[in-house]
């Protein structure tokens, strides 16, 4: 071809030129079409959120036409499938709260220690082995953790405390805590790694030891990140399902005592789904009302966690 690219001479388009223009036009159209397809793919996540909100709100509105909101929040019994139906979400919340507290009592100290150790103390080789290992630990299916809680941890706990029932919030909470440890540890470690080296060097130059530097300089500097790890851990614990469904029993029980069996919001949803409730009944709608409660709670946690996380990213 003799034509110079980008030729802007004023001669009217001849045959070859017109063909090239047409080619270019089709190319532009194709580019736009591809961009549109990619954009639509990206919008799927927005549609998913919209779908979740739509489904939860639609079924919950139907539910709250049967059950006043005040009863839902203040009743102290949860017996949606009985003739004398009561819908006190507090009962399920107490199970969720208790098991989550046990999980956090395990996950926060362990996760923080591991994070500080990996970020400030561990030699390179340990870190190279430990991080993938933690990732593997976080990848184990939760149903496996449930089995482990029911048939390994509970018997061990019963050995110390024989009156412990076979289903209890304690063993489920402990295992749930261990499940969350990798999550808390990796986010906290990221936050500590983001603390600039000059802060540590300044501290060492003043004669501080590693321990003093870690506790008095790095941890406070990374605090918003560590806090976000805790909050995201809470949201994980609250949303966890299978460990509780397997190991904590499915009996609604208004209690804050981890030694008792109790159902959580998530375990209740599983229990109803396993049964055969007709579509559109009040029993069917309860799981969406319970799901909405769960969703609102975790959403609040996630938003707070991400805002804190962003804060530590922006500082340095």
């Amino acid at each position: 071809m003799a034509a110079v690219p980008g030729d802007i001479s004023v001669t009217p388009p001849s045959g070859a030129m017109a063909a090239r223009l047409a080619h270019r036009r089709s190319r532009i159209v194709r580019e736009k079409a591809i961009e549109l397809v990619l954009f639509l793919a990206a919008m799927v996540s927005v549609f998913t959120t919209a779908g979740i909100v739509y489904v939860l709100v639609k079924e919950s509105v139907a539910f709250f036409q049967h059950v006043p909101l005040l009863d839902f929040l203040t009743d102290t019994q949860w017996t949606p499938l009985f003739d004398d139906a009561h819908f006190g979400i507090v009962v399920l919340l107490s199970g969720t709260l208790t098991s989550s507290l046990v999980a956090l009592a395990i996950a926060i100290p362990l996760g923080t220690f591991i994070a500080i150790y990996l970020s400030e103390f561990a030699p390179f080789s340990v870190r190279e082995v430990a991080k993938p290992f933690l990732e593997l630990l976080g990848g184990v299916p939760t149903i496996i953790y449930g089995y482990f809680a029911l048939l390994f941890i509970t018997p061990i706990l019963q050995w110390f405390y024989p009156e412990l029932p076979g289903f209890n919030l304690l063993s489920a909470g402990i295992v749930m805590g261990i499940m969350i440890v990798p999550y808390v540890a990796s986010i906290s470690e990221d936050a500590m790694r983001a603390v600039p080296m000059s802060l540590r060097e300044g501290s060492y130059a003043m004669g501080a030891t590693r321990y003093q530097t870690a506790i008095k300089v790095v941890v406070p500097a990374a605090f918003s990140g560590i806090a976000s790890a805790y909050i995201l851990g809470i949201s994980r614990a609250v949303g966890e399902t299978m460990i509780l469904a397997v190991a904590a029993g499915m009996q609604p029980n208004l209690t804050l005592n981890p030694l008792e069996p109790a159902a959580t919001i998530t375990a209740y949803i599983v229990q109803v789904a396993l049964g055969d409730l007709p579509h559109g009944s009040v029993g069917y709608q309860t799981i969406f009302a319970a799901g909405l409660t769960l969703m609102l709670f975790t959403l609040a946690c996630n938003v707070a966690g991400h805002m804190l996380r962003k804060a530590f990213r922006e500082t340095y």
Partner: protein
Amino acid sequence: MSYARDLTAIRALIARHKRWDHVFALCGLAALMVGVLTFTALFADMAIDGIPRLNWEFLTNFPSRRPAQAGILSAWVGTCLVMLVTAFFAVPLGVATGIYLEEYAPKNWVTDIIEINITNLAGVPSIVYGLLALGLFVYQFGFGQSILSAGLTLALLILPVVIVATRESIRAIPQGIREGAYALGGTQWQVCRDHIIPYSSAGILTGVIIGMARAIGETAPVITIGALTFIAFLPPAPVGAEAPFISFDWVMSPFTVMPIQMFNWTSRPEAAFLQNAAAAGFILVLMTLAMNGLAIYLRYRIRRNIKW
């Protein structure tokens, strides 16, 4: 005299502080060991209870009321088919979203909304996805309690994982590659197709494997859809002997998956069923560990081999 005393005092102080260093390092190591021990105990527990139960019949038998004859045939076939549907939806959607956000998206409020959405979806509890699927796929769209519903649900669940992995590996490609391709007259899509996608494919693969490993183990959303726990038949075969040879009846078939089968056996009181649960769990753990291990290895290889 007092100078020497000060010196010994300072030395004692330093020694005391150094000791705290060691104590703390030991605490960290101990915390790490709790994780290691739990993991070992979990794996050993599954292996000891489950391995005696593993044999060929276990893989080729349907579930049964008699624990000794029960097997996981319908469960592993179901898991494979659901994973097929999941990958079919999650991979193209996730990769396309990743490319759009990194290469195409303008900086405006629409893009912000998409990004916030993805971050939020990653934190939504999996059971809420199950509720979404129950309300939308099962009843609204009329897919029923089928492999299609489950595959779609799990695809949405792992979408954030695939998207984040895609974005991270695209971001690692130096700007010079794009500029070189544009300088030669490539269009935006040509640059993506011939450069961005091939160079980021290993990283995307890592993300896809991690996502699939998660999907294999997910129980709660699939139970919420209403997957049956006792399935003594296989879905229709995808390949037939007569024309048109390929049938898609299987996507609408009822099904069960490995974790649900395991959950079902775990909730039985008989010890023999618990043994079955351990055997199924052992296979499940092996699968997820192998997949996660592969992903970690791939990532390690990428980090070592690619030098831009």
